[in-house]
């Protein structure tokens, strides 16, 4: 079992780290997009530790994304431009936030739990725009400034000089370097989630999902297990939030909006709730199609559908444009509905069915061959 898991992680690492080489072939060879794959993949893998393992659906994980981003920004402003303290502090602080929010929200289960997490996240979002503006800079967003203290070096940017950018002990983290930084953290995050899944603790989380009543009558208090899972997944989210500002040092409150919380739910479900790889696949799928569809506009559509007769083109293009550009969420909605209706286990279930089918076909073929042989 352990061996199989290690192989899985090794293959995962190999695929991720070689992305800059092969992703170009599928039209995804830009550092920004690959960074998004890594960051949202990490977010979804962490989210799955709560939603997939325990069955508790949080609608407020974007709050931790925001906490992570702001913490990392302040680390850049006050400490240094090194990304390492930024991601560590962001992970810890979002863990503390998750402990507080989880402690209250986990008093309920099911839909009430989801609503409580949603309420907390919206509260964080609103606070970031109001009371907490000294920390978050409200609508402007938190950015680097020339007069940031940065007590461990990097302070004292000359007036008019370029602002510093995040680094890793001197190594610049722009472009592909930023991707590799995020990708290595993603691989570590994936490895941790695999180990968690196979551990005694992971089994307890699955047991919580399966039957809390039996848990209780087996002498197990489910609350601490749930809270641990909540905190761990909150820390993953905070880490992902920190990586966002490592790559682009700007933190805004819109990152905490409920749509962002909803997106990670979609990613997890699209890929396959409770599977190890599914959430990552879901995140990549969504970010990949977002990249393609949101780049379209009416001009591009007109060009594509130029072959149609004019009167059809006049009707068709405005209709199609509903689904692209800013309207790409409509496409996502349709995709989501199709998956939930026809493939409730997400992409991973699709792979499994495919494998079964292929495998069965081979078996059938072998059988007929055998039968033919004996005749």
């Amino acid at each position, binding site marked *: *079992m*352990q061996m199989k898991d290690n192989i899985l992680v090794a293959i995962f690492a190999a695929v991720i780290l070689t992305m800059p080489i092969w992703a170009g072939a599928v039209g995804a060879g830009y550092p920004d997009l690959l960074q998004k794959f890594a960051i949202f993949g990490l977010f979804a893998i962490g989210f799955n530790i709560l939603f997939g393992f325990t069955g508790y659906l949080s609608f407020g994980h974007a709050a931790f994304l925001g906490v992570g981003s702001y913490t990392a920004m302040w680390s850049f402003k006050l400490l240094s431009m090194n990304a390492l303290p930024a991601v560590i502090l962001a992970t810890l602080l979002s863990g503390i936030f998750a402990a507080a929010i989880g402690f209250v929200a986990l008093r309920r289960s099911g839909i009430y739990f989801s609503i409580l997490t949603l309420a907390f996240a919206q509260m964080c979002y609103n606070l970031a725009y109001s009371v907490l503006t000294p920390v978050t800079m409200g609508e402007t967003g938190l950015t680097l400034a020339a007069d940031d203290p940065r007590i461990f070096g990097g302070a004292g940017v000359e007036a008019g000089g370029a602002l510093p950018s995040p680094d890793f002990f001197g190594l610049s983290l722009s472009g592909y370097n930023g991707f590799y930084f995020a990708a290595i953290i993603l691989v570590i995050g994936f490895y941790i989630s695999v*180990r*968690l899944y*196979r*551990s*005694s*603790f*992971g*089994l*307890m989380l*699955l*047991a919580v*999902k*399966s*039957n809390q*009543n*039996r*848990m*209780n*009558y*087996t*002498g*197990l*208090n*489910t609350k*601490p*297990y749930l809270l*641990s899972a909540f905190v761990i997944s909150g820390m993953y989210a905070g880490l992902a939030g920190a990586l966002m500002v490592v790559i682009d040092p700007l933190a805004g409150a819109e990152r905490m909006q409920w749509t962002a919380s909803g997106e990670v739910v979609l990613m997890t479900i699209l890929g396959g709730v409770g599977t190890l790889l599914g959430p990552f696949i879901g995140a990549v799928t969504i970010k990949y199609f977002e990249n393609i569809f949101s780049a379209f506009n009416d001009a591009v559509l007109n060009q594509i559908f130029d072959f149609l007769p004019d009167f059809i083109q006049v009707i068709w293009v405005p209709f199609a444009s509903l689904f692209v550009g800013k309207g790409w969420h409509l496409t996502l909605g349709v995709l989501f509905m199709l998956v939930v209706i026809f493939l409730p286990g997400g992409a991973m279930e699709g792979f499994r069915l495919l494998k079964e089918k292929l495998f069965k076909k081979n078996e059938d073929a072998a059988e007929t061959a055998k039968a033919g042989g004996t005749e």
Partner: protein
Amino acid sequence: MSAILTVEGVNKNFSGLKALDDVNLSVEKGSVHAIIGPNGAGKSTFLNCLVGRLIPDTGTVLYYGKKPEGETLFGLPPHAINQKGISRVFQTPEVFEDLSIFENAMIPVMAHHDGSYKFNSWGGVVSRGEIVDNAEQILEDVGLIEKRNVHSGSLSRGDKRRLELAMCLAQDPELLLLDEPTAGMARADTNNTIDLLKKIGEERNITKVIIEHDMHVVFSLATRVSVLARGHVIAEGAPEEMKGDPRVQEAYLGGAHL
């Protein structure tokens, strides 16, 4: 012999329906105490009041587990009651349906070993040698070891109940509460379960409270029988005495089973 459980004056109403009406009962340590009675008599409700699932309106329950002085269990959450050494098999089997039989068996063994909560997040489950051995042993005991990798959700009701029983035994309880442990089982399985419970009785000193409709099971196992009807204990005594008791016959309306 001393009592492990003393129940005094327990009442429980469900919006006007008197499910338990002044129940008094004493369970001796080491005994097998059967509670029989017609459907709706309040037998399951009685168990629910013992394990913290329901809180009685009035009355006391004193439990003498490892400690000599009795302690009341009211107000404790179910997991705390379980930790005191009380395990329960439910009328509708409660197992982890999404997990394999082996995993089902691992959980109570781990709970027994690690306590109510332990953050064991790194070592793989299967690397826990002694715990795996224990889990396999209990599956062996109930004859489910061959099916260890089967999803427990796909088991028959009888198998689920055997699994549940195994899970309860894995915790080495002081007091085992069984709500119709053989319902839904074929005759052969019922006899296996009786043998298993007998064997456990000989090996370990577990006190058992058994709710059962099957008189064959009751008279094979019980050392004492209480008859519950309309929430009230109407008779109590040794099994042989109960067999011919007219009150018991009447409670069962025609006494089909007796």
